[in-house]
């Protein structure tokens, strides 16, 4: 039960961390691409 409830609470910050990594990597890609195409990021 302890492990189950521990997982139930902590899985959300873990997913958040995953999404944060995905977004940060994607933004770096966006920046690179915008630079290559000589346009602004936004």
């Amino acid at each position: 039960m302890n492990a189950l409830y521990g997982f139930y609470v902590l899985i959300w910050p873990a997913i958040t961390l995953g999404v944060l990594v995905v977004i940060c990597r994607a933004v770096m890609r966006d920046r690179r691409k915008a630079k290559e195409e000589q346009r602004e990021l936004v």
Partner: protein
Amino acid sequence: MNSESLYQFSTLTVILLLLAFYGGTYLMTLGIRKKNEDADAFMVSNHRVGFGMGAASMTATWIWAASFYAAATSGYTYGVSGPIHYGLWGALMILFIYPFGRRFRKLAPNAHTLGELIHARHGSSSQLILALSNVLGSVISLMVNFTAAGALVSVLSPLSFQAGVIIAGFGVLLYTLWSGFRASVMTDFAQLVALMAIAIVIIPAVFFAMGGPSELVAGLDNLTVEQANLFSMDAILYQGAPFFVAVLAYAIGNQTISQRLFAVDESHIKPTFITATIGYGAIVIGLGMIGLMALTLGVEPMGGDMNNLIPQMVSGYLPPLFIALFFILVIGSLSSTADSDLSALSAIMMADVYGKNIARGKADPKRMLLVGRLTMIVATAVGIVFASFSLDILVMLVFVGALWGAIVFPVIASCFWNRVTNQAFTTSVLVAMVLFCLARFELLPMSGASGLFFEVLASIGGGVIIGLMVFGFLGRIAGFIAAALALVAMLVFATDFLRDYTVLLASLTAYGASTVVCVVMSLMSRQEDFDFATIGERVGDYDTHEPSVQEGDVATARPAV
């Protein structure tokens, strides 16, 4: 842990925190600022915002201060499943709109607002109904976010509620005013990174500080049977179901979503919306778990105010540094939503009101920018005044909710079915609003024949919601089958039952009535079938753009419309 007061920052500390946040955000916008901003970019950037920036902006916009407080309240009230029944449905609002969003974008690739698309499809009356619903929604959102800032500042420092409201209002206006949507998207990314990083640290920190899994499991004895059940019917009926009904309405009625839909690179709409769905769900459900922790520990919300739950837990278990992080978390979330609301309101006034109804095809981009910036100033002032005086907006909330429900079917049908007419759109929304009011305020007895009448309409509304959701992902036939099955199920289970749940009955009535009237009037109309290809020709950019190095951008270099 039932301390009677929260940790208090000194006035100087809070002012420095706010200065650091709003000052840093403002400095960031200087990097993208242009002396002469472009009206189109002020509303939707360059229509080519990348996946990363788009997903960050979408997530940051959808998370507002109330998301944390309401998720924690849900966890505290409904127990184990409570945070999921708040965060999951809120997240699905983003997901369910994306198939329709792709259609909107295909029909009007250069639009700035959904209202422009509806104007090209139907004309002014339908467009202005949609614009009105968007404006009311954004003003309410602004007010709620400024209120949250005032409440946070007043509970964690000696500063007054009004001081918090005014600082937040001016802070957001300061960095959004010049570059509009571009500033909003740019700062959303930084705000989201801070918000996520803080959430990632705070949730486990509170969890282990309170004793970890063993303490949580031991505290489950304090829960009722329903609260301890992951499949609690109470949580589904009182928290999940009303949210589920609103899934499509919130997304259609919210210009902040449409604006990002028209701004993101068309090929990235799907990953952007899926990532935002997961990101929103994880952050909000995670912070909602703090409400569950409070429940298992037997914590009583200070002053009976559920909004104090998270501050209480953070204040009670973590050192001041974490409380400062929590402060930034809430200020970041409310500011990212407020700046999006300002950008949404300015786009509506620029494109829907000035561009389409005042300038009528001869819009001057410079004047548009002036309209947009003045709108932001007026909207901020209205938000600050409403929030400062704690005005009762319950009636406005009820009205806006009904309007959003009433426009869902007419808006979606108008983009897929070429027989829907302007008259059908407008009449269906007005009839739905009248019937909604009759049911919501029980102006007719909800018994006998009239009770049955509204239950049938509500059952149709239930069928429409399910049908549209399935249609979005699986197509027309699956949508019709799902709608028919949902309708039958609703008629069986809702008859002689739903009349006791006035709010749900009235909301579903708005969906059902607008659908019936819109379909019947469209079928009876002898108007020529609409050619969807004309929408793209009628909705375009306002500025004259020089062709960029990208081949695809040449298409945007057209004269002002």
